[in-house]
């Protein structure tokens, strides 16, 4: 039997650390990925994901299962990501990922895989991923957040509206515009021409 997130959180409120550990296990990968796609810096994404879980633990005593735990968790992560993006813009900080094109896979375990027999395929794949990541980064903040939440986290429009604090209609148009812009940028970057239609 799978225990729901809300029940685990209620257990956590009583001081059960194992319930909290289970929650972290459940969401750690998804959360790090979400923040990583949003801010495009792996190490900072891990830090912010840790910070998100700490905030969850801190406010566990006040937790009331009114909304879904997932929405609440992603709301905290979104706020932290937004702050990070603004701080970076204010400080004009440049990260290694932004400056060097190929080195991003240093952090991935895949880097260690023996690719001697298929270097061209792997290279092409990596290059394409790099372009997509850069393109995603060019989207406006809200569009990027909405598109990341719907594509990679597979959240519903209603959950996204709770996270971004806007109406479902606004989310609908945000995602539509994000896909339009993404399409244009991908064509400009040289991939995604096989279907000529503009969204």
């Amino acid at each position, binding site marked *: 039997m799978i225990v729901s997130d809300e029940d685990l959180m209620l257990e956590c409120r009583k001081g059960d*650390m194992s319930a*909290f*550990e289970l929650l*972290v*296990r459940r969401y*750690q*990968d998804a959360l*790090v*990925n979400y923040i*990583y*796609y949003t801010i495009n810096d*792996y190490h900072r*994404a*891990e830090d912010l*994901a*840790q910070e998100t*879980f*700490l905030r969850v*633990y*801190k406010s566990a005593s006040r937790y009331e299962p009114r909304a879904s735990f997932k929405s609440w968790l992603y709301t905290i992560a979104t706020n932290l990501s937004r702050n990070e993006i603004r701080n970076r813009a204010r400080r004009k900080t440049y990260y290694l990922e932004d400056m060097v094109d190929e080195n991003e896979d240093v*952090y*991935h*375990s*895949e880097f260690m895989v023996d690719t001697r027999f298929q270097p061209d395929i792997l290279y092409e*794949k990596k290059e*394409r*991923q790099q372009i*997509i*990541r850069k393109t*995603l980064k060019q989207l406006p903040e809200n569009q990027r957040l909405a*598109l990341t939440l*719907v*594509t*990679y986290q597979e959240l*519903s*429009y209603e959950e996204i509206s709770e996270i971004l604090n806007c109406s479902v209609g606004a989310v*609908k*148009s945000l*995602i*539509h515009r994000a*896909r339009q812009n*993404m*399409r244009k940028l*991908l064509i400009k970057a040289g*991939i*995604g021409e*096989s*279907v*000529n*239609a*503009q*969204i």
Partner: protein
Amino acid sequence: MPKSKMNNCHNYQAQLSAYFDNELPTWKRHIIRWHLKRCPNCSDKHAAIQQTDKLLNYLEPVKTSDLFLSNVMSRVKTMHTYENAQRSVLNRIGSAVENMKSWIRGNIRAYNPVYMAGFVFGVVMMVGVTLYSPQIEKLNPFNQSNAEASETHEEKLISFEFIPKQTPKRFLKIR
């Protein structure tokens, strides 16, 4: 393409993302599906959305480092112990206040008129002293500022002019 059809298509196209994400009610999905079968323009746009999504899914999810969970749990434990320590300090203060209250209740009998009178006198004195503090410096005769003040007072007295009575030089003649 006729203008009315374009408008119609525009309405459908605005819904295509939601259609793709399966966020529309069933009846709307049926209508859009039916329209997509007939309209090549909208069908192309739908295909473009599908392709964009496919490209976006090219990104492989990153793996969290092995230390992530242990880091989170250790930070949580540290926070937990810190909070407990803080709570114990607050508890200690709370118990001290409770002890003081019980001591006051046990040792001071508030209903005793002598205690009451003493308490009221003390309060009145404190309020009086605070509001009307006595000017001790003015009462001190050896205070320099007081002596200076008295000298200036004398000088003022001496500086009064004495006008002697003078006889008039001419008298009025009365006929």
